[in-house]
């Protein structure tokens, strides 16, 4: 992947927060994916609200960095009181959880220069009404970010493009594609949606750094489409060396079709951690049985099935 870059000396203003999206989308489709804007703005001092919203938007942008002019006031995330600290921490935790997915996107970008941050038209070219949407963007093919970009906003409108279903990442609620989904937002709300038909690999264990996440097991979010199918890819390597160029990598495709969840190797033989959790979205109230086992998964612990939100447990 190419070197990273920031968007230059921007301002601590809502306008510049909003501008970061079309700016970074342009760079991405131009083949320059590893880009971002200084969180909070380089010049000036952001309000607590602006700083929080900026973090919540920037965690879904490829290059995430807080930065400012030396004469601005200090703005470390813990300097603005308990509530702001908790909100920003939650945003950063979410970013870390998405690292396996992001890493996969960066690998794919290094192979064919596909954008990491995508405009809606990239995935939904037929939805012409969304060709000029500059308020939302996709992270890879599977995640839609619709950040809050207005001060004091309480009702937020999101377009869920295409014809397929979407799932709210946090509440796991399912939605039909629509041009205007309204949600009540609080300061802690980070609107994020999963596209029906995609599988997103994440790691949910909270660690002090990404390096310490290396041995942690995966959680697979399997978001089915209207046909009950889903597909996704997962990439991993040692994250430190160039050995991946010699094939020391893991690149797998996970697919759900015909009621079968398969996990096949696309390339590489790098040993990766196990899967500890699978989240199935949109398969109805019926219980599903997990037949067979996950091949190549060393631990033989029995799987448990839990239905969200009710905590009904059914034995395997």
């Amino acid at each position: 992947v190419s070197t990273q870059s920031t968007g230059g000396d921007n301002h601590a203003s809502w306008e510049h927060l909003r501008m970061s999206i079309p700016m970074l989308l342009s760079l991405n489709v131009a083949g320059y994916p590893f880009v971002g804007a200084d969180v909070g703005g380089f010049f000036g001092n952001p309000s607590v609200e602006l700083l929080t919203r900026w973090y919540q938007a920037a965690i879904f942008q490829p290059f995430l960095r807080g930065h400012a002019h030396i004469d601005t006031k200090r703005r470390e995330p813990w300097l603005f009181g308990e509530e702001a600290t908790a909100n920003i921490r939650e945003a950063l935790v979410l970013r870390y959880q998405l690292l396996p997915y992001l890493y996969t996107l960066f690998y794919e970008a290094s192979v064919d220069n596909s954008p990491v941050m995508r405009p809606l038209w990239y995935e939904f070219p037929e939805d012409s009404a969304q060709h000029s949407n500059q308020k939302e963007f996709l992270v890879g093919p599977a995640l839609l970010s619709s950040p809050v970009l207005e001060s004091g906003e309480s009702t937020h409108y999101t377009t869920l493009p295409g014809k397929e279903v979407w799932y709210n990442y946090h509440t796991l609620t399912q939605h039909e594609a629509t041009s205007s989904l309204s949600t009540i937002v609080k300061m802690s709300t980070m609107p994020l949606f999963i596209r029906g038909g995609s599988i997103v690999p994440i790691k949910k264990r909270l660690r002090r750094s990404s390096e310490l996440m290396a041995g942690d097991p995966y959680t697979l979010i399997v978001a089915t489409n209207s046909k009950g199918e889903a597909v996704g890819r997962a990439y991993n390597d040692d994250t430190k060396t160039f050995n991946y160029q010699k094939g020391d990598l893991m690149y797998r495709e996970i697919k759900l079709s015909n009621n079968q969840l398969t996990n096949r190797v696309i390339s590489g033989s790098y040993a990766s951690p196990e899967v500890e959790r699978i989240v199935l979205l949109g398969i109805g109230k019926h219980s599903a049985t997990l037949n067979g086992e996950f091949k190549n998964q060393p631990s033989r612990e029995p799987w448990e099935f839990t239905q969200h939100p009710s905590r009904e447990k059914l034995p395997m």
Partner: protein
Amino acid sequence: LASRRQGEPAKQWYQRRVRGSDGSDEPGTAACPNGHFYCTNKGFKGQLMGSSRVDDGICDCCDGSDEKEGQCENTCVALGAQMAEAAKIIRKEQAIGFQQRLAYVADGKAAKARRDEDIGRLAGERDKLRGEMDEREKVRNEAEGPAKAAKEAAKAKFDAEEAARKEVEDEQIRKEAEIIFRGMDQDKDGETTLEEVQQYSTGEESLLDVDETLNIQELSIPDILESLQNKIRMQREDARKDEQREVKKKQKRAKKPELKKQPVPEVVKEEEEEEELWGEDGQKIQKNKEYIPEPDEFDDLDDEEEDEPEDVAPIRNTISYDAETQKLIDVFEEAETLYNEAKKQFEHAERQVEEVEKLNEIDFGRDEEFFSMRGECFELHDGKYKYKMCPFDQCTQDGTNIGKWEGWEKDGKGNVNYGVMLYSRGAGCWQGPNRSTRVEVKCGSKNEIVSAEEPAKCEYAYVFKTPAACTKVQEEHEIHDEL
């Protein structure tokens, strides 16, 4: 797979039995975000940490129980020994400091007692002196009127006499000038011509300036007469000055050496010496009754006069007061001297009271234990800067003021925290606040600044160790808990 419905719940399979939201059923893993893990750390001390530290490749527990078996070395016993050693050293320091503090407290309390004594006494003295000053002021004010009036009367008389005398003299001079003018009539034909004037002016005894004769054609007889008169007048004044100088010399030889300098005629100069007495009209009053010239208001800046060694004014006559007038003047002058003396003493006493009050305003600690370090200064060189603190006064970084004494830190409820000193309102910072310093005060065996930093722009932080903060000697286990 059956139908999906809008907003239906999701299903999740969990490989491990991650049930409880507090993760209490999975203590040995990092699976639960809110979970906690406790390492026993036998030989050192137990530790509670978030479960995110379990199985992450970092040995957080000294007994290595947060990682897989065999991955970490057990360092608990060594750490325990280190901790005990460190605790011993701290205890020793605390013990020394504690003893020293007792001495500080004794000194501080004694000083406070002295201040309490002093302030009563000093205030009494001051009030007494104020009374005296007020009394003397009254006396002075009473004497002022009569003295002023007498002086004015004397001056009026003198002025009148002077005017009369001047008239007489002017007439004399006019006559003299005429005589000289007629004397210029060389050919004794009863008329003095311009040529004759020119001839006269080149003569040795001429009273006319050579320069003037250059314009002789333009001069008229009145002009010539006026010139002559001025010259005669000047001659007379020179003669008088010489006479006065002689008189003064005689006086000086006869007098004590404290004769004061005479004022310059053109300007009422400010005299810095004490005991100078000024009358109401700005005229200097001398105590001695000899002839002392006074500035004559008619005499302008005569720059052509050379500087007399004693600045003798070109005066015709000097005013002298009769015995009665002089007595009134003397009475007033004496009253004024006494008043000024009393005022000085009163002000001195008041300053002394204020000094003690200022000290009483400073909080020197619960037991006055910080009093003895006031007036001392402490320094720390960090290789780049010289950091200094003068307790209850100010802090500096090299030559820059980084904070003046503000007070002890207070918590939200207004309780004083003797562990933190605040210095503020220091030198301004470009694009930043006025410099300020926060001093953490800790127990130590002697007074010293142990660290100085600038954690935020133009906001400084010292750590200052002092016996004054050694309020107790801790038990070893108490120190362990702190470590």
